[in-house]
């Protein structure tokens, strides 16, 4: 009986593993379009090939031989010129509040297109700092918190992305580490933590904070956040409050969530937002307000 038991248990828990085929027909492949159209800036678009999930990443080459047409408020503005490494640029700058459409024609891939609108600019009116006690799992300490004040436009849905760039001087010494030979100004994107109510789920920590005006529509609001690094005397911080299109918000938000849950088998899968018809990627738009602290 005992031997029989071993046989049964061995069979039951012998779960089989095998590779299965997954085919990616060439005809289903599509162009990837990535562009963030920034108000008052030259339009820059990146084109590349999408590849099957089982292919090697190096095959996702950029595309240099496409015809990229830019429409402004439904009127053809120009054909973008190819620059390098899959980038195409316009010769004119994007206008505030305009609607832009991209159409990409290619001999191999189906014609892909997308449309977005430049959102209204939302100014940072004030940045305040307060010192607050922070309790984490190990200990508690005092830290510098920033309050970024802005006025959300009423009667429209607004989407925001807050990024903070910290700048500091990097000094280059001589071989004896005695004399400063040179200095370079370095700028880095900062890691931001916040428990402000405007964030989805009331919490966020990343190098970009994404939020909407659902709870603050038409109000003057001060968003509170904490920057986790401090470069010391002489360093500066630039706060970029980007008013972004809904497409770009959905893309950035879903991409962020996808990154958080990538290796968690118990997490629900996340689909990264895609607004390209017959293609992959994102066409979004933004208008930025910058304030230095």
């Amino acid at each position, binding site marked *: *009986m*005992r031997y*029989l*038991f071993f046989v*049964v*248990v061995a*069979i*039951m828990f*012998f*779960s*089989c*593993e*095998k*590779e*299965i*085929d*997954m085919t*990616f027909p060439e005809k289903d*492949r*599509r162009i*990837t379009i*990535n*562009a*963030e159209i920034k108000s008052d800036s030259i339009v820059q678009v*990146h084109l*590349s*090939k*999408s*590849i*099957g*999930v*089982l*292919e*090697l*990443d190096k095959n*996702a080459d*950029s595309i240099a031989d496409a015809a990229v047409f830019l429409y402004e408020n439904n009127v053809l503005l120009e054909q973008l010129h190819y620059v390098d490494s899959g980038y195409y640029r316009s010769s004119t700058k994007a206008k505030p509040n305009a609607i832009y459409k991209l159409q990409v024609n290619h001999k191999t891939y189906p014609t892909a297109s997308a449309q977005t609108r430049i959102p209204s600019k939302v100014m940072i009116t004030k940045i305040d700092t307060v010192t607050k006690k922070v309790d984490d799992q190990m200990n508690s300490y005092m830290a510098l918190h920033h309050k970024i004040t802005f006025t959300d436009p009423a009667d429209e849905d607004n989407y925001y992305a807050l990024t903070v760039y910290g700048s500091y001087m990097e000094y280059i010494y001589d071989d004896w580490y005695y004399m400063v030979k040179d200095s370079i100004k370095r700028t880095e994107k900062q890691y931001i933590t916040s428990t402000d109510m405007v964030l989805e*789920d009331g919490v966020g920590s990343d190098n970009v904070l994404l939020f909407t005006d659902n709870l603050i529509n038409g109000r003057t609001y001060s968003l509170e956040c904490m920057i986790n690094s401090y470069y010391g005397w002489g360093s500066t911080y630039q706060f970029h409050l980007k008013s972004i299109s809904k497409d770009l918000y*959905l*893309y950035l938000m*879903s*991409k962020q*969530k*996808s990154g*958080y*849950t990538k290796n*968690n088998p*118990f*997490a*629900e*899968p*996340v*689909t*990264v*937002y*895609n607004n390209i018809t017959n293609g*992959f*990627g*994102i066409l*979004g738009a933004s208008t930025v307000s910058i304030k230095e602290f």
Partner: protein
Amino acid sequence: MTFIRVFQRLCVLAKIIFMQKNQLFLFFLLIFYCGVHAQNYTISGFVADSSTGEKVIGASIFDTISKNGTGTNDFGFYSLTLPKGKHVLRYSTMGFETIYKTIDLQKNISIPVKISTQAITLKEVEITVDHTKQKVESTQMSSFDIPISAVKSLPFIMGEVDIIKSIQLLPGIKGGTEGTSGLYVRGGGPDQNLILLDGVPVYNVNHLFGFFSVFNADAINHVKMTTGGFPARYGSRLSSVLDIHMKEGNTNKLKGEGSIGLIASKFTIEGPIKKDKASFIISGRRTYIDVLAKPIIAAIGKSQNFEKFGVGYYFYDLNSKINYKITERSHLYLSAYTGTDKAFMRMRETFAKDDYSESTADIHWGNLTTAARWNYKWTDKLFSNATLTYSNYEFFTGSESINKIPQSKKEDTFSMNYSSGIKDWSIKYDVDYIPNPKHYIKAGGHAIYHTFSPGVLAFKTSYADDNFKMDTTFGSSNIYAWETALYIEDDYTITEKLKMNIGFRHSGFFVQENYYNEIEPRFAFRYLINPAWSVKAGVSEMNQYILLLSNSTIGLPTDLWVPVTQKIKPMHGMQYGIGVTHAINKQIDVSVETYYKEMKNLIEYKEGASYFSVEQNSWENKVEQGKGDAYGAEVLIQKHAGKLTGWIGYTLAWSTRTFENLNFGKSFPYRYDRRHDISVVANYKFSEKIDMGMVWVYGTGNAVTMPTYKYQPLEINPWYTELIESPESRNAFRMPSYHRLDVSINIHKQKKRGMRTWSFGLYNAYSRQNPFYLFFDREYSDSGQSYPVLKQISLFPLIPSVSYSFKF
């Protein structure tokens, strides 16, 4: 009256009912009071199995003179009111001898009837005629009576007879992933099925993470599954009602049966406490993997230098019931079920004297259900049943460790416990009133007091050196709720050809100062084209006030039942169905049904939400509500008698979900959207000594969310850019299709003291590697370069089984 005219009138009627719910009461009263006839007399009584005394549910009683008939209810009671004079009554049901009684009706009389299984082989044709006839004539569509004897001869994994898995073989009903006991009915979720054991809801029907169900077939008398056209007596779930009745116990003599299988053994004993007055049944089942593996586990522990070492898993069930006939009019039933799964680990390691480390871990979950039921026959036409029930489902996991510090009497200790559950008290009163053969009225009320324990996590730790101590508890406090229902329905025979079941149900739910309530109209009709053909249709509205927060892959015991709240609204379903039933010949019938189901306020986890989370209070923030719809067609060809019995079921189905905040608002297929589903189930009886069972199933692969393409992101890093590997849409990828063949052979032998049976089975006879889980991995080429591959995990290859069972 032509069929078309009848159908048009019914459509108008249905419109009135569903568009003007407030007028439903008046309409119903009108039906209730119509058809009151001149002087008639009533024949009533109970129909029972002559050999065991068990009441026979769903037996047909038909007067061959007046062509009127009725059926026995869930307690074997019948009542038939007929004109004064001579009548020939036919009592019949599947698996039993048909008997006739001639009576000269001059007053109300009670006729208790005992029918026998003995003469089946001689009168097989008669039996099948009645069954197919019953099926064609019934107003109830989308309903399946599952004979336990047929279930027992089918092949199952490890030879463990499983009622839930046999139900998964019916059209419109799907299992979840391989081997599991989940039920997905007509595009609904696993929480949308009301599973009743003697009238008590069972919240977790899984043993061993869903590979086996909790129902012990030896203790079950009758199983009925309803997937559409719900009569008003059923409610509180959107998709199905599985009504399981336990045996009452043999009232004639002491009987027993048991079996010894590869992983579990079971034993049932039943018999009279007082002949023809009171009986009992006790049935138990336990696995013994833990007992058999004990010496091996101990040897492993010894090799690792543990002073004590034990790891194990087992589950057990215990069913018991007492049936007491107080008077001819009054019966009392007391029933109970308890079952537990338990996995444990104990370990003690000694390093030196007074220097040791000890750890224990424990996980267990289980149900306890109890029911007290009292039947009373008030008059020959009025029967009632009062039910008082208690049920409790508990899940617990905990671990504890102690480290003794050398040269001191101090210890470092750590313990963590998590528990959750749901507890119900309920009271129910149901009445059957049969004023005349044209009406069968059922009415009743139901109140449940729920106590939800949505999860409490307790930590306790102390470090002797640091004098540090922590004793804290996280989690939600208990939530209390009242769920109520009132219903009335009438099975109304308008003409010989046209019959309808009409009713309504008022459901209510009171939780945290919120009160939700709805009136749910129900309507079904049957039109008999000729004795072999009928058309049936049904419309039902359902509401559901409790929800299951469930992992989307397998049924874990951590799945949490929660109530609707102010933020989370009740689920609502509306189902429409139409079908035809045809008796091809005396043994075979066919039914074809189509359905459309709309569902609102369905619940799904948000994208990115993690099932395991320390935020115990946050379940409301982790879910989204949206709508869904399901439609399809089901074909069932069933052969009831002869040497070969069984059925072929085919389902063509679509099921989609639309959530504002999932998949960017676009509709997506439900995870168990299965386009084609086929089941072939056959039993062949070679002789009284040998029979064989065979099951073949095929299903379109489950819809899962997996990336198929990858592409560059918006922010491109010149040194290294990680490509986006995103699913194009939720549940857009199909797993490979599922198919499997199981066979079994049963060899019976009559011994001096009873019958013994050897059963041999092969699960997955051609060892198909069916998909359980898909994942991406990396392989390496000969040159050392890595490349991604898609892999599939399959659980069960060919698994043989053997069991020995006996009856005395």
